[in-house]
């Protein structure tokens, strides 16, 4: 290469390749981090082959549970308790999302820079950030179990509190992004503050906020399974129970029900979200991308 370029000096020289030093250093640091992580995580790597040897056996057992006649004992019992658990999880997620949605409306207005004054905005944002930092599980174990006891009611409240953090933040961001025109028009016509908030701010963000709620509902269905593991009811409780007794055929049925129902609800809710957002004529916006911030 070098010989060629020196020979044909009259030809424009090939541009020098940009340095790769930074990329190489980055890759090296990453490798060191991963190796150190593998060592410091105290993981018992020797057990890794187990997932291949044992995994197939368990997977076979799970499939076997699925293909059994669902009307024979004990499989009819398995299926019905799977569906009851899933319904309870969905109810928990629904009520939790509603609680979060209702509480997030005032929080969103208080945290929007173009609605409230600076001090209120900062305080509200701190509260929302604190809520967002803590997982639902922490709310459930700290406050709700001692007061409400183990059960779906405590789970729904924990999901609701957890949802306020993200929904409040997203609502505030939506409010900050509105078109100021209608606000000025309403102000010019002498509308009271409550009417301005209701008919100019809220009307503009309503479709977006509804989509956030639905998306949060989808997330809460998964989160309700997590709460179930600590005893908040729903499919999570049934699942951890089944794992405790290693009933693999039952586990297979439970996982199947979770997958099918979740995919179904996701697609229905996704279609509704799509309809809500595109109904406002915002077709240029990429409507299928979900808010990563959730």
């Amino acid at each position, binding site marked *: 290469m070098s010989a060629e370029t020196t020979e044909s000096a009259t030809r424009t020289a090939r541009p020098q390749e940009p340095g790769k030093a930074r990329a190489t250093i980055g890759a090296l640091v*990453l490798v060191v*981090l*991963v190796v*150190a*992580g*593998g*060592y*410091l*995580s*105290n*993981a018992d*790597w020797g*057990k*890794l082959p*187990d*997932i291949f040897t*044992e*995994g197939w056996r*368990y997977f076979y057992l799970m499939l076997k549970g699925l293909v059994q006649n669902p009307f024979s004992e004990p499989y009819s019992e398995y299926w019905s308790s799977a569906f009851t658990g899933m319904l309870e999880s*969905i*109810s*928990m997620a*629904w*009520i939790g999302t*509603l609680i979060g949605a209702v509480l997030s409306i005032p929080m969103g207005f208080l945290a929007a820079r173009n609605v409230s004054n600076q001090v209120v905005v900062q305080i509200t944002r701190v509260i929302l950030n*604190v809520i967002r*930092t*803590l*997982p639902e*599980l*922490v709310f459930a*174990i*700290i*406050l709700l179990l*001692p*007061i*409400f*006891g183990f059960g*779906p*009611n405590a789970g*729904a409240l924990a999901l609701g509190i957890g949802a306020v953090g993200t929904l409040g933040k997203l609502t505030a961001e939506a409010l900050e992004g509105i078109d100021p025109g209608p606000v000025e028009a309403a102000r010019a016509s002498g509308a009271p503050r409550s*009417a301005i908030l209701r008919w100019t701010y809220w009307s503009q963000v309503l479709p977006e906020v509804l989509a956030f709620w639905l998306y949060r509902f989808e997330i809460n269905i*998964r989160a309700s*399974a*997590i709460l179930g*593991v600590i005893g908040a*009811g729903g499919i*999570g409780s049934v*699942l951890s129970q089944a*794992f405790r007794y*290693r009933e693999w055929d039952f586990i297979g049925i439970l*996982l199947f029900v*979770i*997958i099918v129902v979740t*995919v179904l609800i*996701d697609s229905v809710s996704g279609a509704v979200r799509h309809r809500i957002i595109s109904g406002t004529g915002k077709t240029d916006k*990429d409507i*299928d*991308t979900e808010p*990563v911030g959730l």
Partner: protein
Amino acid sequence: MTVASPSASGPAAPARPRKPAPSRALILGLVAVVAITAWAAWEIEFELTSLFENFSNGWVVIQDFLHPNWSYLGNASTAWLETISIAVVASFFGVAVGLVFAYMASQVTNRSTRLYRFTKWFLAVLRSLPDVAYVLIFVALVGVGSLAGILALFIFNIGIAAKLTAETIDAVDAGPLEAADASGAGTFSRARWAVQPQILPNFLSYALYIFELNIRSSVVIGYAGGGGIGQLIQVQFARFNYENVSAIVISMFVVVLLIDQLSQYLRRRLV
């Protein structure tokens, strides 16, 4: 508002336009929402009276929480090291495998419609299970410990990384792709040289986001038997050592906040 009513304005003024009646879809939707809410509330026996009746039970716990046991932070820091290591390993391998799936889950890079459909379906199934279900599965396979947590997060991360990256791939600039096609590039080199440079900044920022997610879900992972800080919380909570749990929760604030800041800084430099 009442001043503007048509009767008050002069006869010359045009009548105020009638308010459009609410659409049938809206009414049906609202009825459905109310019905589902009522049913769901009944299903989980929703009530708030406990909040007032049993508040004293909770108050005892809250008081313990207000007096965190600071000396416990030492134990928490070793558990945090474990959690962060789990997250690093799981996100690294998760996003690496997720990238391959992302190429298979976009019609820009995957020219086989059948394989594309299958990948999409497979990823939807992968994403529909909550992380805790994976932890339970791997705890059953390899026993309680960090390995179960790493494997569970690894599988979980593949689904998210593949979905987010596939959406980015769908939106790449077609120019380089056409150039690669014109020069007769194969499926692999097309993906590597025409697509990857375009998506790399976004992909790295997704990787950071997934790392953050893994730190956040560490409580859940550990609670179900996947090692790290969650396991510590579970043990201390089961022993009713609320002062220790409080110290852990405070350390969680600090760690999550620091990692958020770090990842925001890195992401700003990337994108």
